[in-house]
């Protein structure tokens, strides 16, 4: 039982428990916080696997970006402290059962599969190396995907602006709900 093992299990506990709480908590704000913990837990796994850069990105983008976005939107749409309406118990049980069976099936396949382990030299993904590759146009270069993502982000931005900034005068009856 090494320290790394202990850390691993702790991380696993943190991630899974907060993940479960994130999808079950009836207080939406708390759910968002649990999600945050889960994401942090995952970042922890990245650290644990020594992929520091990914872990950093995870924290910056997810924790710093997406979660904040989500929390922000919760503020916009939800009275704080308000409990979420209860889902029908039947639905919950059914969903749980379906999910569990699927999980079992997928796990079974994974365990049964013999993954080939290559004896490749492990490359340490330094930030520099990643950056270099990200902009390379040769083989193993990721310049093109990078560009694609940039266009996607641009498009997403424009889409968001159009959708979220809808002219208010068209909705006279909904003025009280305008964004703060």
């Amino acid at each position, binding site marked *: 039982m090494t320290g790394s093992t202990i850390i691993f299990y702790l991380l696993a506990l943190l991630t899974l428990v907060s993940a479960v709480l994130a*999808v079950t908590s009836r207080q939406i704000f708390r759910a968002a916080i649990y999600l945050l913990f889960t994401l942090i837990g995952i970042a922890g*796994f990245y650290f644990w696997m020594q992929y520091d850069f990914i872990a950093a990105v995870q924290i910056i983008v*997810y924790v710093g970006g997406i979660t904040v976005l989500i929390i922000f939107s919760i503020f916009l749409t939800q009275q704080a402290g308000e409990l979420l309406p209860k889902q029908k118990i039947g639905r919950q049980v059914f*969903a749980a059962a379906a999910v569990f069976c699927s999980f079992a099936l997928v796990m079974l396949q994974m365990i049964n599969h013999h993954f080939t382990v290559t004896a490749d030299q492990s*490359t340490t993904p330094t930030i520099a190396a990643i950056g270099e590759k990200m902009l390379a146009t040769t083989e193993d270069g990721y310049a093109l995907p990078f560009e694609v993502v940039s266009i996607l982000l641009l498009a997403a931005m424009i889409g968001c602006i159009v959708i*979220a900034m809808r002219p208010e005068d068209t909705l006279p009856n909904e003025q009280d*709900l305008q964004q703060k």
Partner: protein
Amino acid sequence: MITPGLYHILFISTALFFIGMYGFFARKNLITMLMSIELILNSVNLNFIAFNKYLWPGRLDGVFFTIFIIAIAAAEAAVAIAIIINLYRSHKSIDVEQTEEMKY
């Protein structure tokens, strides 16, 4: 306890994946459903990193995949939230069960 390896991480990621699924199926609030999606994407990321780490450490395919997934997830989340906010404005609710006008 056994030394954690690939299968452990796979277990965790798969579990996360299905927890996310559960959330998607069972939650009524659109934002929580979106959160479930994030869980799903994260589980996939974990998968990629784990495979990269344990099976194919020679190249960084998994790592880059993860990076891009994170970027996409951000974009997706942004658009989704914009849509949800807009929906909230017209429906005055973000309960998924309020959005069943079109059916059959």
